């Protein structure tokens, strides 16, 4: 019943039609390769670089890139930007990943219940979704983050709180259309419980859209984290994140542009990669969608 890994002719999932289609999607492969490189770099680079991310060298403040062993230069405290960049990548990618996991869980749960139950339960749940979607997400996120003095865990939770609605909408629509299909009716005849039908019979058939949305949610979560950290309400220094490395970069834009350009380019690369992968998955899993 699992739509994604269902082997029809092939004996292994990687020989399935979806996997073959994904492998022929050049942009998706490029995205996947870039993410793998990025993750490996974030794990190992801090051990390979000549400077520690916390090492402050006041004689080497604002060193331009490629001087004194600083590939990406140094920041206003003389810390190595490259070392901080990869440390920050760990935080930013982890926050993005776990925010995706949380919001996908919540969104799927709400979507499945709303879509399967329908009636007033479904109506109320979907109106809550609409209500959350009516707020500009950044406003909501900043208001909550400012009030709650965030740790990295809290930032993750808050990003999930402001981005679960898209998943909920997609799952709801999917489940609503699956609910009347023969295999569900058959399950009902057999006396299977609602919970069993929802999560064991219907949900596996809605996995495609969920995977695609989840991938795009990682991209979105990384952007949200970057923005609130840039404004000083997200990940707090000295813990580096791509967003808070940009904090204060604007005032040094004239003399030390690399402080702004390097972390931003990193965010763009990571987010683009996830969007490419999401696009490839959409094609591979046959998910309808007009949007990118």
């Amino acid at each position, binding site marked *: 019943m699992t739509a994604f890994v269902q082997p029809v002719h092939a004996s292994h999932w990687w020989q399935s039609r979806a996997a073959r289609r994904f492998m022929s999607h050049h*942009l998706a492969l490029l995205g996947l390769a870039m993410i793998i490189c990025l993750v490996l770099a974030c794990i190992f680079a801090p051990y390979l670089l000549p400077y520690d991310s916390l090492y402050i060298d006041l004689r080497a403040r604002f060193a331009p890139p490629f001087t004194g062993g600083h590939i990406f230069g140094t920041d206003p405290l003389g810390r190595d930007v490259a070392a901080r960049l990869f440390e920050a990548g760990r935080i930013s990618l982890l926050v993005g990943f776990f925010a995706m996991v949380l919001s996908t869980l919540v969104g799927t749960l709400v979507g499945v219940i709303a879509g399967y139950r329908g009636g007033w339960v479904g109506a109320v749940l979907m*109106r*809550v979704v*609409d*209500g*959350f*979607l*009516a*707020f*500009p*997400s*950044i*406003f*909501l996120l*900043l*208001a*909550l983050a*400012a*009030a*709650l003095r965030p740790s990295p865990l809290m930032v993750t939770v808050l990003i999930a709180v402001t981005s679960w609605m898209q998943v909920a909408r997609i799952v709801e629509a999917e489940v609503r259309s699956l609910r009347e299909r023969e295999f569900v009716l058959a399950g009902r005849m057999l006396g299977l419980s609602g919970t069993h039908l929802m999560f064991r019979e219907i949900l596996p058939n809605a996995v495609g859209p969920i995977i695609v949305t989840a991938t795009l949610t990682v*991209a979105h979560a990384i*952007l949200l984290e*970057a*923005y609130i950290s*840039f*404004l000083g*309400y997200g990940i707090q220094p000295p813990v580096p994140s791509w967003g808070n490395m*940009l904090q204060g*970069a*604007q005032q040094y*834009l*004239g003399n030390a*542009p690399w402080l*702004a*350009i390097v972390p*931003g380019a990193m*965010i*763009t690369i990571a*987010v*683009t990669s*996830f*969007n*490419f992968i999401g*696009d490839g998955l959409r094609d591979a899993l046959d998910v309808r969608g*007009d*949007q*990118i």
Partner: protein
Amino acid sequence: MRSFLINRLFQSIVLLVMVSIIGFVILNLIPGGPLAQYGLDPGMTQDDMARITEQLGLNRPLWVQYFDWAWRLLQGDWGTSFRDGAPVLSVIGRHVFATLLLMGTSTAIAMTVGIWIGIRGATRRYSVFDYAATVGAMVALSIPTFWFGLVGIYVFSLQLGWLPAGNMYKIGDGSFLNYLHHLILPSAVLALVHIAIWSRYMRSATLDAISQDYVKTARAKGLSERRVILKHVVGNALLPMITLAGIQLPSILTGALVTETVFTWPGMGRLFLDSLGYSDYPVVMGLLIFSAIIVILGNLIADIVVAIVDPRIRLA
């Protein structure tokens, strides 16, 4: 048409109620709740706090407080700013114009360019242009707006010196050209993401329209390809774009706020951040509710416009 309007209006009101409930819950989630500001004053005693709680009616059941709060919102009493004691609505009112100006200009740019790219991509499907536009759109969607703003400032203000790095106008120079000069960079930065979105939607809407029977008929009549595309295809493909404009509102608004913070643009985004900095919760809450209302109204208007333009809905 009438039942459609009534139905749609009813939905919007339900949504407004939902938004106000979410807003109220958030207000009470903040540690200290509506009393947060008073707690910051070191001279406050337990008795003072109890007295204020009593005065503000915070010892009543939550649902009574909600109805009281919602009723005051309806009457236009959105509280007063902690910062300068001005009514929240008038504080917001002072900043609305700047945000709307930025949003409007940038949407005009994004629609024009995005729709053009979308039509061209769809009519020359799988061409180099189409492929470049597809990849370009995905990259554009991935660039953080605020960072793109910084890069724009670096290139066009600091290196080339062509455009101002921020603010809406030069003090003492209220001329139209001066406004325009300050508007170019932020609205172009804000437009980038939306050009990507508009071009993707327009491309798929154009492709949908091209495969319709009436297009075949138009071609069979011997109309020129240009006329077929401009009149029969684009005319119909533009219809879903009106709905899209409504759907895109929260994202345009969010983008505008992000752009404002980088360009010190005196709009609602700037006001929101300043108010957060001062823990000015009445204004923060006011802006949250106000922006949600703009979004709901925008969607309602978009749906009504579609209903007016589209005979299938108008005559139904």
